């Protein structure tokens, strides 16, 4: 008793299905866990206890009545607070949206609920997804479960930390330039940023529309695959979703499977090692990644060194595109329908607007300013257009690489988790940390971060896997291989 929170989602779901435990009982235990642990982690912004209990009871009833049961039966899922859930506050960790309650569900929420998952609450993050450390939140920073003086990574810090600290088995994050993978790496859990268009963005509060995707975070590859299966696929509410977009031309049911290790080895995957990016990482990261590469070699994967050019241009391109889109996306928060009860007396239109918009956090303001600048008079060609060109170059480079390799391996983050507060005043240093993760966002390809090991200080290190678009199965296979060999699903912080 009292240990259910340690189980991965698929195992709990099995027990509930087999009526070994009640969903209600399990949920109650999780609440206890959350109440105890989250004081130290700060991963939740809002919890949905009442309706969650109701939902759990419904599920128990469904089972009793022999009704049709969904694939995520009884699995509680935490949702990053930039994904709209009907009737639940969706603040984006921003002061400006602190009272905003969406009147509709994001497509991913509808799909999770259809599979009988339970939306347990909303998770902390960097405001509007802008950050690499989950420190830029109106609700305070997220603490790393492995060492609470350290950042959890960002921007989906709450989503990764809640899973890592056994508060929820599965969560959803969003990834614009590494926002799922970075905190997964820092908190030692698995997270995937799917191919652009694989998962509907309908209901995800846009930061940078052309870069971001929603993806699952979990402690086991099975949970990742099950959740991804539930949320992926064409959505008529998103013109950029797969197969509704002309370029993808895919109209299939996506379904990812967990293969046996032998089965995976039998697929003869060709692995490319992004040598130049491994080399430019901190030495402990470098060492850990090399250990993983050696593991691959030991199991007769075909492993070859390769490199990615233009990664420094990519970073610049990423920040131009992301901030440009962000500046436009966030302009709707003008206090006419969101925000505060500010008396306009004594203001004219512009001064009232800037008064209201001063409520954005520092990092958001910074990005709105940069974005407005790159789009302004005469600079479009110099910045935005050039950034799009770089984007094409990066995409072409990946196209070439995926003719040679099935999967590319590199670190998720170039450094170890850092102390809370250490880099808050150094935005450029923070931006530079995104250099390995933004590549897949620019190219629209899937990318996964899996636990790779720990530093001497006991801080987690993540391994990043990239594959060609709509080839998430390769990532799941390689992750399954490492999970089997390393048993990283058993690496649990002692919180």
């Amino acid at each position: 008793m009292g240990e259910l929170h340690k189980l991965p989602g698929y195992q709990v779901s099995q027990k509930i299905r087999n009526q070994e435990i009640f969903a209600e009982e399990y949920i109650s235990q999780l609440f206890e866990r959350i109440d105890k642990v989250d004081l130290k982690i700060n991963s939740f912004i809002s919890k949905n206890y009442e309706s969650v209990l109701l939902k759990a009871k419904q599920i128990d009833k469904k089972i009793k009545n022999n009704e049709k049961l969904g694939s995520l039966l009884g699995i509680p899922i935490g949702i990053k607070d930039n994904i709209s859930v009907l009737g639940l506050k969706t603040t984006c960790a921003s002061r400006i949206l602190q009272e905003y309650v969406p009147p509709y569900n994001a497509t991913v929420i509808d799909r999770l609920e259809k599979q009988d998952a339970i939306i347990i609450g909303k998770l902390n993050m960097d405001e509007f997804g802008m950050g690499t450390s989950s420190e830029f939140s109106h609700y305070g920073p997220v603490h790393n479960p492995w060492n609470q003086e350290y950042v959890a990574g960002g921007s989906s810090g709450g989503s990764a930390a809640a899973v890592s600290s056994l508060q929820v088995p599965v969560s959803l994050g969003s990834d614009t330039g590494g926002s799922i993978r970075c905190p997964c790496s820092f908190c030692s859990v698995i997270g995937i940023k799917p191919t652009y268009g694989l998962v509907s963005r309908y209901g995800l509060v846009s930061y940078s529309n052309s870069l971001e995707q929603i993806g699952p975070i979990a402690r086991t590859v099975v949970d990742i695959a099950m959740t991804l299966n539930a949320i992926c696929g064409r959505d008529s509410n998103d013109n950029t979703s797969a197969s509704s977009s002309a370029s993808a031309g895919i109209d299939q049911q996506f379904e990812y499977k967990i293969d046996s290790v032998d089965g995976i080895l039998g697929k003869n995957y060709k692995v490319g090692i992004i040598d130049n990016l491994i080399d430019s990482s901190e030495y402990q990261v470098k060492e850990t990644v090399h250990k993983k590469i050696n593991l691959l070699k030991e199991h007769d994967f075909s492993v070859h060194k390769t490199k990615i050019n233009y990664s420094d241009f990519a970073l610049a391109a990423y920040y131009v595109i992301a901030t440009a889109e962000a500046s436009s996306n966030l302009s709707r928060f003008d206090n006419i329908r969101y925000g505060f009860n500010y008396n306009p007396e004594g203001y004219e239109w512009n001064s009232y607007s800037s008064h209201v918009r001063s409520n954005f956090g520092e990092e958001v303001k910074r990005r709105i300013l940069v974005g407005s600048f790159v789009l302004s008079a005469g600079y479009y060609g110099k910045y935005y257009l050039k950034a799009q060109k770089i984007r094409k170059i990066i995409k072409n480079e990946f196209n070439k690489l995926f003719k040679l390799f099935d999967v590319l391996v590199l670190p998720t983050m170039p450094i170890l988790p850092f102390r809370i507060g250490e880099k808050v005043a150094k935005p450029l240093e923070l931006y530079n940390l995104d250099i390995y993760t933004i590549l897949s966002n620019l190219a629209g390809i899937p990318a996964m971060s899996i636990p790779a090991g720990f530093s001497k200080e006991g801080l987690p290190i993540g391994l990043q896997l990239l594959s060609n678009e709509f080839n998430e199965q390769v990532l799941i296979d390689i992750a399954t291989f490492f999970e089997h060999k390393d048993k990283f699903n058993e690496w649990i912080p002692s919180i």
Partner: protein
Amino acid sequence: MDSKHMTQTESNVNQLDFDSNNNNNVNDDVKSYENIKIGLEIHCQLTRLETKLFCGCFSNYRDIQPNGNTCPICLGLPGSLPLLNKKAVEYASMICISLNCNIPEKITFYRKNYFYPDLPKNFQITQYNSYELSSIGFDGLISYYNDKAELDNTGKSKSKAVRIKRIQLEEDPGKIVHEESNSKINNYCLIDYNRAGVALVEIVTEPDFKNATDVRLFLNKITNIFEYLGVSDPNLEGAVRCDVNVSVKGGKKVEIKNVSSFKDVEKSIFYEITRQKTLSMHEISVKSETRHWDEKRKITIPARTKEEEDEYKYFPEPDIPRIVLGSDYKVRIKENMPELPIERLKRYVENHKLSNHISDILVNNKNVSDFYEESVKIYNSPKEISNWIVNELLSKTNELEKDESIGNKSDKNRAFNSQVTPRQIADMAKLVEGKSINRNIAKEIFDKSIRTGESPLKLVENLKVEKIQDSEIIKKYIDEILSNEKHLIEQSNNNPNVANFILGKIMKKTGGRADPQLTLKLIKESIRHS
């Protein structure tokens, strides 16, 4: 710099060989034509679409309680995404084809970023051609006067045309509602988002117009096209709106916004030309500015300073992937397009053998033309039917218009429709062509038919049945007259016309129903016997 700009646009205009002598407006000062440039930006709502441009809310927002026609998408709620209405692209393409525009193989939507309370997202999803030619239409040319010239391709010099710079598809903003008409005493305003997201086609012309009359002709022409295409009902309030650019030689371009009716478009042009000329006369330079049309005072007033074009921070809308229309798109749309006025005109002239003049009158109002089509279907005599419609029906409608000072086209249409059905017109044509009745009687029957709504055939029938052929009845009439006017009997001895005079009286009394031959015979008998 300014002079360079001027010569450049002037040379553009010179490429067109319009004949301004052919202008039929005597009010305008002919000599000043070359000095005036007028361009238009017309916004036309695609009112015939069922749903808005990017969501499932109704296109017809009128008469719905404020903010009752909204959803997360058109309200721009966080996380909502625009879903392009494909039908809107088709409708916009039809407009482009009718105005002889090019349609690119790929179209792109752009965000136009500016803060305004009626704009739910604080950007408008629109199209933009500065970075690539990707708006739904560009480089068109449409004649708006003397379509015949367009038709036979011979007398081009006699027609007038305007170049279309571009056509773009975009979303309409919401509406700001002031409860008090005097904005100074309002301490709040309300926003109604019911209109937000309605599909709008913006048509931008080159500054090829020289006077207000031409602008009116053009506006009539294109609103007629909208109706023929079935994409928009221009009679709906706010469905077609117009911004006007006016410049006189030596001055900068002035944009007039907020002109809500076509009559006011003309008035605002007259006002603006006069204002600008007066300024130049006093050697005050006309500065580039945006002015508002004050509907009540019928003058233009300076508006808030217009933001520079580049301050709109345009960039491609990331939520709507570029739409590949393909090279055969135009052909496919054209195939399924309703008949255009110009095509109908051609058919009337060539197949129905109607005159240009008559065809023009019919075609210029879709309602009238459709009425004609219906009538011809019932009785196939284009000449006779067009004659009844143009010479009888329309002149009556016009009288009605004058009498009751019916202002707009929709009232006129209503008046037109309520009067008579195609069946009645077809019957009239049939009666006249079948020589059942002569033209004068036919006109009377027609009048009666319009008044009573009864079928002309039935009226004629009744007329025959009611003809008085009973000698006793006629005799009574004769006796009555002769007893009242005894002198007639004496006069009849030396004046043979007296009999006819009496006949006339009887016809008048009986409303022409007395059988004339029988009556005359009886009159003569009566006189003789007296």
